[in-house]
Every structure is written in C-alpha cells, then in structure tokens.
C-alpha cells in the first residue's frame, strides 16, 4: 500500500486556491464529444455526438447528488468522465482540490480507489464464471491492499456488511437473486473504502420490494462511511428519496439544478415540470387530479442539437427567442442562489403548462 503519488500525479496535485474543504468533486464546464468517423480505412471525422456539452456540478462530502434525464441526455457519459473512464474533450474535474482531468492511467490509479461505480444490470456486471469471493476480492488484488487469508476475511466482512451470508463466499453469481447480486456489486464498490460511489441506475432492474432493501443499504453505508453518491436514475421518486441535490439534464446540458426539495416542489424549467408530471405516482387520486403534460416527439439527436435552447422544439412555452439564444443557467427571481434554471421563460408557481401552447393531452 503506497501512499506516495506517482510523479505526474504529484504535478497535477497542486491545490486549487478556491477549493473548499467540504467539496469532494467539482466539475467545471465539462464537455465530451464523440467523433463520428466515416470513410473506411482512412477515416475522417464527419461530425460529433455532443454527449455532454458544458456541465458544471459540485458534490459535497457525504452528499448525494441525483442526476435525472431521459435516455441519451448524457448522464451516464458525465458519470464516466468523472470516474476517469472516458477522456474529457474540455473542462475540468477536480477531486479534493486536485485536478484529475485526463490523467494518465498511472496517475489516475490512486483516484480509482476513491471513486467507484455500481452498475445498473446486476446480471451483466458480474462475471458468471467467477466465484463471488473472487469478484468482491478483485479490488484488493488489483490495488495490492490485501492477500491470502487477509483478503478472504476482508471480503467476508464486506459480504456481511451488505447483507449477504459470508458462507456463500464460494458461490457463483447465478446462485443469487437480482437483489443479492446488486449487493455483490455494492460490496465490490465498497471494498477499497472509496469516498465517492457513482451509482448508475442501481435499482432500476429490481422489483420494488427489493429496491427498497438496496436503497436502505446504500443510505446506511453512506452514514457509516461518510460516502458521497452520484446517483443516476430515471425513476424520479427514487431520486427524490435519496438525493440532497438534483440535476436535470437534457441533451447534454443542464436544464435545472438545485436542492432536491426545491426542484421537486417548485420546478422552473418546463422540461422538469413535464418530467415530474409524467412520473406515475402510486396514488390513484393524485394521478387523476394531476395535470399531465405530454411532451410531443422524442429527444432530438445530439449530433445536430436544435439551435438556441435545446428543448425548444418540444417546449410548450417556446417563443422566438428560445430558437435563437441559448438560455444561461442562473438563479431565477424568487429562487435561492443554488437553484438554477436554464430557461428564458421559467415556469411560475401555479402556472398550468398543460394548456400553454394549446397542447392539451386528452
């Protein structure tokens, strides 16, 4: 276990003067474009998928940030950029005040220990031919922190901590149910005592009763180990339950961000309003009373995003200005400083979007 950083990491580790102690990760203006190649052998770039296009975000120590958005809005790409799994096109990611953007594999290594991931599919993310003990023990082997009987003991402690029977050390993933497999994923992520765990749709594949078990486990672990979570999900009620702050993404940009209760109680971006109204609540009376805004069409292509505000082709409030000028992400009148919305015509309290623009659903 070496505590000294490799040379190039040390160079990158110049402390950011503006860094505050309670901030774990700061993402500034992050851009990730994927080139589209064409032309066979001698390929040339014909365009870019603008997966993430200028997103900023801070994750505090012990905090949970919820990341919400539809398929293709760039939330998983953003998470992978933060974890250092993808090179960043431009922008900056700092971890505990140290710039970790585009570090070399070697330089990134100490940070890999601090940032771990839990994946969506507990079936696809575990090698079916390896025993559970080996899967959970991998991080120890890779980072050479424990070997032999010491490793086995550490793994069994982890298994017990996440609610698995330590005697099942030698079983294969196929012998576990979906919820138990997700616990294996959690144990593996926890092995090196990271500071940040990125949860990419961790409960989407689970049944509701099991989903609650896993969510409770995650919150216990957060209390015990002071973890921070970046929690990606498309289920808005789950995100609301776990998150301190929420960020809503649309087509690679931030539509709205702020404290969880703020964004859910007084959403200002029409997209957030539509998203919230579309989420089915397990409550027939509120479902019947709710004004549901049915957005027309699909999310446009991130290769050729719409001009101005990227949401304008589907927005019930869109006006001329929205097609020309990109709205800035800023705090709107009456909102606290940390509740920011990127919209020219933010939704006012009590405003009925279902009738705005004459797009009545039924």
């Amino acid at each position, binding site marked *: 276990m070496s505590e000294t950083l490799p040379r190039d990491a040390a160079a990158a580790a110049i402390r950011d003067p503006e860094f505050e102690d309670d901030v774990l990760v700061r993402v500034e203006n992050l851009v990730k474009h994927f080139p589209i190649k064409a032309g066979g052998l001698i390929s040339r770039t014909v365009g870019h998928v603008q997966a993430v296009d200028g997103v900023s975000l801070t994750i505090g120590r012990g905090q949970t940030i919820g990341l919400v958005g539809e398929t293709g809005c760039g939330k998983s790409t953003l998470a992978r950029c933060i974890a250092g799994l993808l090179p960043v096109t431009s922008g900056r990611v700092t971890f505990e005040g140290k710039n970790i953007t585009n570090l070399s594999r070697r330089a990134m290594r100490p940070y890999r220990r601090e940032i771990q991931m839990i994946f969506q599919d507990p079936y696809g993310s575990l090698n079916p031919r390896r025993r559970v003990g080996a899967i959970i023990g991998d991080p120890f082997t890779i980072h050479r922190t424990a070997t032999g009987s010491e490793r086995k003991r550490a793994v069994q402690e982890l298994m017990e901590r996440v*609610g698995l029977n330590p005697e099942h050390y030698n079983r294969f993933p196929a012998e576990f149910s979906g919820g138990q497999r997700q616990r294996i994923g959690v144990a593996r992520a926890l092995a090196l005592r990271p500071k940040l765990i990125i949860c990419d749709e961790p409960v989407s594949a689970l049944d509701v009763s099991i989903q609650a078990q896993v969510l409770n486990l995650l919150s216990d672990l957060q209390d015990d180990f002071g973890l921070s979570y970046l929690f990606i999900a498309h289920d808005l009620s789950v995100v609301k339950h776990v998150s301190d702050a929420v960020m809503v993404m649309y087509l690679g940009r931030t539509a709205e961000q702020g404290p969880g209760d703020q964004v859910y109680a007084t959403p200002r971006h029409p997209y957030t309003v539509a998203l919230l109204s579309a989420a089915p609540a*397990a409550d027939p009376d509120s479902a019947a009373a709710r004004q549901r805004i049915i957005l027309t069409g699909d999310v446009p292509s991130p290769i050729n995003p719409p001009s101005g505000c990227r949401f304008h082709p589907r927005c019930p409030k869109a006006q001329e200005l929205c097609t020309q000028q990109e709205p800035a992400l800023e705090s709107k009148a009456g909102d606290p400083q940390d509740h920011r919305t990127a919209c020219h015509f933010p939704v006012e309290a009590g405003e009925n979007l279902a009738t705005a623009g004459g797009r009545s659903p039924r």
Partner: protein
Amino acid sequence: MTLLEVKDLAVSFPTADGVVKAVRGVSFSVDAGRTLGIVGESGSGKTVLTQTLLGLTPGGDISGQAIFDGANLLTMTEDQMRNIRGAQIAVIFQDPLTSLHPLYKVGWQIEEMIRAHDRKVSRKQATERAIDLLNKVGIPQASQRVNDYPHQFSGGMRQRAMIAMALSLSPKMIIADEPTTALDATVQAQILDLLLRMQHEFDTALIMITHDLGVVADIADEVMVMYAGRAAEKAGKHDIFYEPHHPYTKGLLESIPNSSAATERLKPISGQPPSLIRLPSGCAFHPRCTYVMDRCLDEEPQLVAVGSAGAHRSACFLPVSAIGLGGDTEELRKKAVSEERHAAAAEVAGKIAAAPESEGSVIG
C-alpha cells in the same frame, strides 16, 4: 359485459429440477372497455398467466378454464387459436426492439398482420391501413416512416408501432405485458395516454401486466396482485391503494419511495420471492410476512371477501375488517397476531426479524 372469464387456471412446467408451478389456480374476469392491472414481482406468474391464454406456453401442464367471448381458449386447436390471436386478442410485449423483426420494414410487418387474417385485403389497401394506423398512434410523416426499418425508430416509436400493430385488426382485448418498462418517463406517459385513448375509441378490454404500481394507479380499473402464482388480493383500484388487506399488497405500497416521506426510511419486504419448484408450505408469503400466524404455516388461505364491498377479495387469514394502512387497522392486525401466533410461527417471525433486510419491522 364480461369478455373474458378465467376460472381456476393452473400452469406448471416439468423441468429437470422439478415441477415449476408457475400459476396455481387463478380466477378473474375482464369486461369490455375496462382495464385490469396485474401486479407482481418477477416470477409471480403474471406473464405465464397471460401467455397461456394465447396458447404461447407449449410444454406446460394447463388446467382450468378461460372463456373468451363464449369459447374456451384453453381447449382450442392451433387453427382456431390463430384466428383469435392478433385478431381478437392482441399482445404488446415489453421490449419493442426484439418484438419487431429487424430485417423487415415496419409497415410491412403491420401489413403482414392485416393480410394474415384477411386474404381479401390487397397489398395497397393494407399499406393504406398501416399508414392510417401509424398516423393514429402519433408517428409523424407516417406515409414515409411506413418504409423505415425498426432500427430507424426510437424506443417510443417502436412501442407505438407495436400498438399500431395490436390495433390493426380492432381486437376486443389487448394484453399489454410491461409495455412501458423499457421507456423513459415522458415517453411512458405518451404511451399510456395513447393506450387509454385507443381503449376509449374502440371499447377495448385491456389487461395491463406491470410491476410498477404507479402505472396501475394511472390506468387500471381493477387490480389483481399476484404472489407465487396465486392472486393475493383482488379489488378495485381504490381499495388496493387505500384499503389494502393482504400484507404483501401493504408491503408493496410501503416499499415505494413516496413523495411525502422523502427523509423517512423505506420499509422493504424482507427476504426474496420463493422458488416456484419448492414453494413454502401453507401461505406462500409466510416466510416474508411480518404478521405470520400459526395457521399460515400449513394452511393455504383462499380468496375471501374483505372490507365492506363485495368486490374486494384477499387471501389472508388476518381479520376481514383489517383493511387500510392506518393505525387502528394496525392495532387490529397486531391483536389478531398476538392471539394466533404460538411457538411455530414465533420461530418464523424470529427468522424474519433476524434477516438483514427486515429492518426489525416484525411485530410481536
């Protein structure tokens, strides 16, 4: 008007490991123009149940009756079934990508459906109908998109195409098996809205299979909650959500993170769903039930009328008046449990309480 009446349907599959009892005696009925929501976890038998109705479970041992429009679906020959499937009862599956053939144009696949059931329709007429249907389900520029391949459609559009296909022969009943599970929230809202509008327009009966209680709250009229191949509880939508009787229904409702209690701890159901080969004795839910009583261990509860209205039925030994999520009802349940739980059940309850997931929620 009752369109489909299923009586005591049971389906089991012999496998090398033993007999899988997927459905164990389920009865329900669906009226024209109404929506029945079937809710349950993975492996509760909800999909097998509906696929059996359409003769899509070869190799299964099937017993019981399913009277659709006067004829028993379970005794039909394959030829007779072909005339029902698609034309009278249409299915929308969960995954719209794998249920469309990737090598045929979307329009062609809808036309095939129309022409397979009515040979007199010409290709041209069929194409016109396909365009018309795609228009109806909200595909923009349907006359051009009809010539697209499935990969050129987005997930939501593919599901719309599936719905267009399901509607193409104006069926009397649509079985939707998790139709929105793979879709985003805004697209899900579009699809549910579309299904409801189509139902109103054509007076179609709809069976909605889902594990999402939110979807059920939105569109179902009646709800059947399934657990380990049986109906745990059946009732109108309001009774299920506000006056649940069965501890499993109650557990499902309480394990959803709901808006009002964002900071509270979730109350999961402890344990895992049982194996359908080696089912627990008595009530299949007893190894996970916080209200387990002695008789639950060896006696299987039958569906009985609970509450005040006759349509609300539940398969649980708790007092019939113990409905709802309130404190008074909880007292009633606790009282029943304290009288009926002795050594045997106390041991089970102890195990549930000791399980890491139970959060110490066992009473007694």
